[in-house]
């Protein structure tokens, strides 16, 4: 509890004890009772009265303070001393509870995001010195000891270790790192001593960017939050005018009809409705729910840039995915080597790797890796001469005196060589030696192990269609789509075509349905910003993706998309529950209060009780 909260608590206790004691005292004299009850009333309510008066002078007439001041002062004037004091007392208890609950969930969320490094170790004259990470310049070598957080992004100069990335990604499996690996700030060094050369300033490092993003997320308000703010603006004055009418009109009508006016009865009813109508429950519980939802999501490695995006996520009916890097690993691997009669597999792979060895294409890298992995030998490129690359076809070269051609089916046709058509799909590399067909090698992108589960969970979360867009060849795309279970595949698209496809989908969907695009942040920034909701995955270290997307998945597990949707649904469910619950109870009590069936004590429940229940409900969003 803060100092302010403790002060209020003491006031509540003192005032409650005094009120109870005065209730038991056998004082009959009205003036004495008035003076006695005024003491606990002022102890508990002086600040509310002060704010109400200040509010009137500053043009803020109809606020909660005014409602409470008017209701309690009115009750006291009518001789209902106990009720007046009790209303103020319970109102303050409610306020204290609210401020405590809010403070607690704020602390919980900061604990979840406890990734801010406090210092960096810089070596000076053989001595380690702790400095403010902000003061470390690019290119400085910092030392990270086991158990410490990496404060700034950089490259390891020496040392090997394992890193705990769970604070950033939600992934509990530690990551192994060694010399020359890039490391990002916010990870915890688990085992070995690391020397890291920084590549960024602290302010530009991953950890700063993430903290910035999370802290600013509440600035972008959701429709529900805006609705409540606007609602409270008109609601409170309306209630005050209603109460005034309730206090004046029925007695006046009575007078006209010649009945007794019954002023005090109607004024009490009006004051009761004032107490009931306080909009606190709504006003506090909704931002609290969103804050909790965003906090809960970030602890799972899902960064949501604003409440409005969390809201949009819960309405997502179409998920459009990029293939490479999103549903597949984006890492090419040799999946099949098929040698023609008279050649052996190892020889085939070696020739292909040698011929392609000068190319920087991912395919040549995967050939080299496959060769080195299967034989344990380094590739020997010393005998490779006369390398010629024919773009869109393949490579020809002279290797150890033999003329080797390696490329796709088009290349073989061009060279008039008969080739075998592979059964499986993938990128084909056919090899011919001195004009004779030697066999083919299939290279494919590996589907992520979780991709199928991710699509199933999206469907379970209420997504109507999962659509895959890719620049890849049709047969490859359809094979991947069939295996994962996506509904629609669009293949052989250029980056601009992807934007067009998304626009077509946006035009055809219904107004209330949202479309989310999921990409890895490379080359798809335009689509990310065009979709209702841009989700970038595997974004650790990719600034462009963090900038362009609305929701950032810290690691590259596609199941996280469904996790994020689940969290958003839960948050919105709680928000709607609170809105409905609070409004139903309030309006029911308002009606009953105006009709005289509800007294001041029920009014207090309708105000403070509903608020406490709504806040408790809202804090559930944190535990997802």
């Amino acid at each position, binding site marked *: 509890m803060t100092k302010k909260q403790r002060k209020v608590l003491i006031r509540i206790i003192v005032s409650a004890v005094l009120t109870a004691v005065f209730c038991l005292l056998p004082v009959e004299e009205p003036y004495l009772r008035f003076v006695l009850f005024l003491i606990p009333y002022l102890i508990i309510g002086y600040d509310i009265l002060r704010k109400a008066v200040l509010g009137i002078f500053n043009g*803020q007439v109809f606020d909660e303070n005014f409602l409470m001041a008017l209701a309690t002062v009115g009750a006291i004037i009518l001789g209902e001393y106990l009720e007046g004091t009790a209303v103020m007392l319970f109102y303050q208890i409610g306020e204290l509870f609210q401020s405590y609950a*809010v403070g607690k969930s704020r602390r919980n969320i900061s604990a979840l995001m406890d990734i801010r490094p406090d210092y960096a170790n810089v070596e000076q004259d053989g001595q380690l010195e702790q400095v403010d990470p902000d003061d470390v310049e690019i290119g400085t070598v910092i030392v990270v000891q086991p158990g410490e957080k990496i404060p700034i992004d950089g490259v390891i100069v020496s040392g090997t270790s394992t890193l705990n990335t769970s604070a950033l990604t939600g992934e509990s499996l530690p990551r192994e790192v060694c010399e020359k690996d890039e490391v990002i700030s916010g990870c915890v060094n688990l085992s070995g001593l690391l020397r890291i050369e920084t590549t960024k300033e602290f302010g530009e490092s991953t950890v700063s960017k993430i903290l910035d993003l999370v802290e600013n997320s509440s600035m972008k308000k959701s429709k529900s939050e805006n609705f409540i703010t606007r609602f409270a603006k008109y609601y409170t004055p309306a209630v005050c005018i209603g109460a005034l009418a309730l206090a004046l009109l029925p007695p006046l009508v009575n007078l006209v009809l010649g009945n007794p006016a019954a002023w005090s009865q109607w004024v009490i009813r009006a004051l009761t409705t004032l107490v009931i109508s306080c909009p606190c429950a709504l006003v506090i519980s909704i931002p609290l729910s969103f804050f909790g939802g965003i906090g809960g999501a970030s602890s799972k490695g899902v960064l949501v840039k604003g409440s409005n995006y969390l809201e949009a996520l819960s309405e997502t009916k179409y998920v459009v995915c990029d293939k490479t890097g999103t549903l597949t690993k984006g890492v090419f691997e040799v999946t099949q080597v098929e040698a023609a009669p008279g050649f052996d597999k190892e020889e085939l792979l070696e020739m292909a790797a040698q011929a392609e060895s000068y190319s920087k294409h991912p395919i040549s890298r995967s050939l080299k890796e496959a060769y080195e992995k299967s034989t344990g030998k380094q590739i020997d490129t010393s005998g490779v001469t006369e390398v010629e690359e024919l773009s869109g076809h393949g490579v020809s070269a002279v290797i150890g005196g033999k003329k080797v051609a390696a490329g796709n089916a088009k290349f073989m046709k061009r060279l008039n060589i008969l080739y075998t058509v592979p059964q499986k799909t993938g990128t084909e590399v056919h090899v011919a030696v001195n004009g004779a067909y030697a066999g083919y090698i299939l290279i494919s992108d590996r589907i992520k192990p979780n991709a199928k589960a991710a699509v199933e969970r999206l469907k379970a979360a209420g997504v109507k269609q999962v659509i895959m867009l890719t620049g890849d060849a049709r047969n490859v795309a359809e094979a991947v789509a069939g295996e994962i279970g996506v509904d629609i595949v669009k293949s052989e698209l250029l980056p601009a075509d992807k934007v067009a496809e998304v626009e077509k989908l946006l035009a055809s969907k219904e107004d209330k349905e949202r479309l989310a695009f999921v990409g890895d942040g490379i080359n798809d920034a335009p689509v990310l910003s065009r979709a209702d909701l841009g989700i970038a995955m595997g974004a650790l270290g990719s600034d462009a993706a963090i900038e362009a997307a609305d929701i950032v998945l810290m690691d590259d597990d596609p199941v996280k998309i469904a996790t994020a949707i689940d969290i958003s649904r839960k948050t919105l469910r709680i928000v709607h529950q609170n809105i409905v619950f609070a409004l139903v109870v309030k309006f029911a009590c308002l009606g009953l209060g105006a009709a005289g069936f509800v007294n001041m004590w029920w009014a207090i429940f309708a105000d403070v009780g509903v608020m406490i229940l709504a806040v408790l409900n809202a804090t559930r969003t944190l535990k997802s």
Partner: protein
Amino acid sequence: MKKTYKIEVDCAACAAKMEEAAKKTAGVKDATVAFMPQKMKVEFDEGADVASVMENVLKNCKKVESDCEIFLS
């Protein structure tokens, strides 16, 4: 230019009031107050004197919500 300030405010409705008061201050292009993280983000007009504008923002906020605080440094 945009700047973010730490604030202290007790209730969500008061935060909304501060936001409106800040928005109406001369020199402020736009302002957002987030109650949960207790932050205020102010976008200033071109060429505005940040220090004096913020003093006025604080004054206006105090008017609508006497208990609030903005930490200007």
